[in-house]
């Protein structure tokens, strides 16, 4: 090496040492995921989902979308339906986002029916479309059409004594169960979901919410009892919170989100056939400050809900409602939203529809997200031993992830290794499960050491007897001395 070269290399090396070392992430997102620690503080966590493509109407080949309101995935044909409200049409694309067809008009026995303000859509197994179509003014309607766009049925406002005359019917989201019963979430309806027969006859209100009680309402309620009738009438009525969206999963469970909750008590519900909430998730950490707009439940039962206030999407596990990941936020970058209105899962990706951005954003699982989900799925399938490996992988990536420790604890609990389970429940700060593991552990400890325990008690009794006899003797000696 020549002297000249050496003279050139040295300053270069020095320069490299002086330059700040900066980690560069290839696919950083404009948001940071977080989880909650044991005292309900948010702590940063690796992202579970990262934004992929952002699809505008032009990318789908249909021109700009205008105030789109709903997404629906037809799993039979693997097609995505986009309800493009402002353009009075429904856009259907396939798994590569290639246009399949644009639905604008239907054929009702020769008469052409067009859409007014389409808001929601549901497509059942044989391709029958159920479309909620509001009107600019007055009552909306529900269109039922087969896959060749032949209208089967149109029905307007349901007729019942329970529905007053001046009520304006604005059907919003719609689901149909496997027996053909139709559930409609309508705007400004606080009694629950409309439940209709396949022919459009009103059956009942389904899944009425409770009135959320707080101190102010309780005091008003008291006044209402005390005051004379006319004064009492001037006190505002308490109405239960209305639903903001409804979803039906593969197994036929109906999920719903509640809008504008003031106490954040119940926000996400799963309704059984009787219409009562079976999740009973109350005041979870991620409920606080949220106003959920849509919900999606995947084939494993993971629930994903989108919050319109902060533009955040939360994915939670179905057992305890523990938040696994969160992503999104308010903003204009890819991966953030201005007004998210709908969420759907499509080929393993999550799609979020933004009605102001007029775009669909794709979200893909990260390695971390995949590890968490894999582990939880293995646990839910009862493969406890196999779930330990991915849980440890998750803990390696994020030592603050309490959910993973609880998962490990549950796995060891099922394997009847209660001591290890206790260790992990402690790390995951779950007192309830810890107590369960402790009970099993102490039962076993008790059984295996039963002999020693009995021996201990026996020795204790013997000791007491010996001390007593010694004392009595001493007293006798004392007495003897006195005498």
């Amino acid at each position, binding site marked *: 090496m020549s002297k000249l070269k050496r003279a050139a290399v040295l300053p270069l090396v020095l320069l490299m040492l002086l330059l700040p070392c900066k980690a560069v992430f290839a696919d950083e997102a404009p948001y940071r995921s977080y989880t909650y620690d044991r005292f309900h503080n948010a702590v940063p966590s690796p992202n579970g989902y990262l934004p992929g493509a952002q699809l505008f109407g032009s990318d789908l080949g249909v021109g700009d979308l205008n105030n789109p309101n709903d997404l629906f995935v037809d799993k039979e044909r693997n097609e995505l339906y986009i309800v493009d409200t402002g353009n009075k049409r429904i856009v259907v694309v396939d798994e590569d986002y290639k246009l399949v067809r644009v639905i604008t008009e239907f054929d009702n026995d020769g008469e052409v029916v067009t859409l007014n303000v389409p808001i929601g859509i549901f497509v059942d197994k044989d391709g029958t479309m159920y479309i909620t179509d509001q009107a600019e003014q007055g009552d909306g309607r529900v269109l039922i059409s087969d896959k060749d766009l032949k209208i089967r049925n149109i029905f307007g406002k349901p007729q019942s004594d329970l529905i007053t005359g001046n009520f304006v019917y604005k059907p919003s989201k719609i689901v149909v169960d496997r027996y053909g019963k139709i559930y409609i979430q309508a705007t400004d309806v606080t009694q629950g979901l409309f439940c209709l027969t396949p022919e459009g006859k009103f059956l009942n209100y389904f899944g009425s919410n409770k009135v959320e009680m707080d101190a102010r309402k309780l005091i008003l309620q008291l006044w209402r009892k005390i005051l004379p009738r006319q004064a009492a009438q001037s006190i505002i009525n308490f109405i239960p919170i209305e639903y903001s969206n409804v979803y039906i999963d593969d197994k036929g469970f109906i999920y719903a989100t509640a809008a504008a909750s003031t106490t954040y008590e119940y926000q996400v519900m799963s309704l059984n056939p009787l219409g009562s909430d079976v999740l009973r998730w109350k005041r979870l950490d991620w409920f606080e400050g949220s106003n959920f707009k849509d919900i999606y439940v995947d084939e494993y039962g993971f629930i994903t809900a989108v919050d319109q206030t902060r533009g955040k999407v939360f994915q939670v596990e179905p057992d305890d409602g523990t938040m696994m990941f969160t992503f999104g936020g308010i903003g204009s970058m890819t991966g953030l939203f201005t007004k998210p209105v709908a969420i759907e899962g499509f080929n393993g990706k999550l799609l979020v529809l933004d009605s102001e951005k007029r775009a669909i954003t794709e979200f893909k699982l990260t390695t971390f997200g995949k590890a968490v989900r894999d582990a939880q799925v293995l646990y839910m399938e009862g493969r406890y031993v196999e779930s330990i490996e991915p849980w440890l992988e998750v803990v390696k990536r994020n030592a603050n992830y309490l959910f993973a420790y609880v998962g490990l604890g549950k796995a060891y609990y099922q394997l009847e290794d209660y001591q290890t389970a206790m260790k992990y429940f402690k790390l995951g700060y779950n007192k309830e499960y810890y*107590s369960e593991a402790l009970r099993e552990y102490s039962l076993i400890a008790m059984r295996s050491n039963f002999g020693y325990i009995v021996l201990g008690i026996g020795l204790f009794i013997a000791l007491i007897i010996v001390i007593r006899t010694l004392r009595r003797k001493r007293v006798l000696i004392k007495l003897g001395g006195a005498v």
Partner: protein
Amino acid sequence: MVEEFRFLFYTMLHPYNGFDAVKYERKGSVKTAVLVALLFFLQNVISAAGSGFLFTYGDPDKISVPNIFIISIGALVFWIVSNWAVDSLMDAEGKVREIIIVTTYALMPYIIFSLANTIIGNFATNELRPFMNMLSIVGMAWSVFILFVGMYQIHQLTFGGTVGILLLTVFGMAVMIFILVLLYSLYQQVYIFLYTLFSEIMFRM
């Protein structure tokens, strides 16, 4: 010393005779009382730090022993001072020595039951929670009862008078805390006033 500890447990089980003896036979000592107060403080530390995972609330990393000392011993001192003050105002017959002894000796059941709870907490599951709650309630009720009897004996009051003196003592504690906070803020204001005066003079020199 052993005799004094035996008397401590005697007052637990026979508060009427025991505290009567405190007044008229000068039994019990302030030395033992201080020991019991320290035991009370120690017990508070132990139950905060060693109640077991299931029965520890709040962040174990944030336990502050000086804080616990100030709160537990401070509360005792406030109670004794306030009780003595009320006692003097009401012309009751208690002396400071007796008030100190009664107040601290009355803590004994509470200390013992909490200690039992702390120990059980390390082995118990959630199912024992009601039982442990019961234990701590029994401990507290016992302590309050002994305190009441003790006050009744040393101040030589009627039943109603004793209830009154206890309520007034609590009120007196509140007044004392209020005055302390007031003094503290006043002291700050005086300090700021002097500081401003000083700096004004310095500017003009």
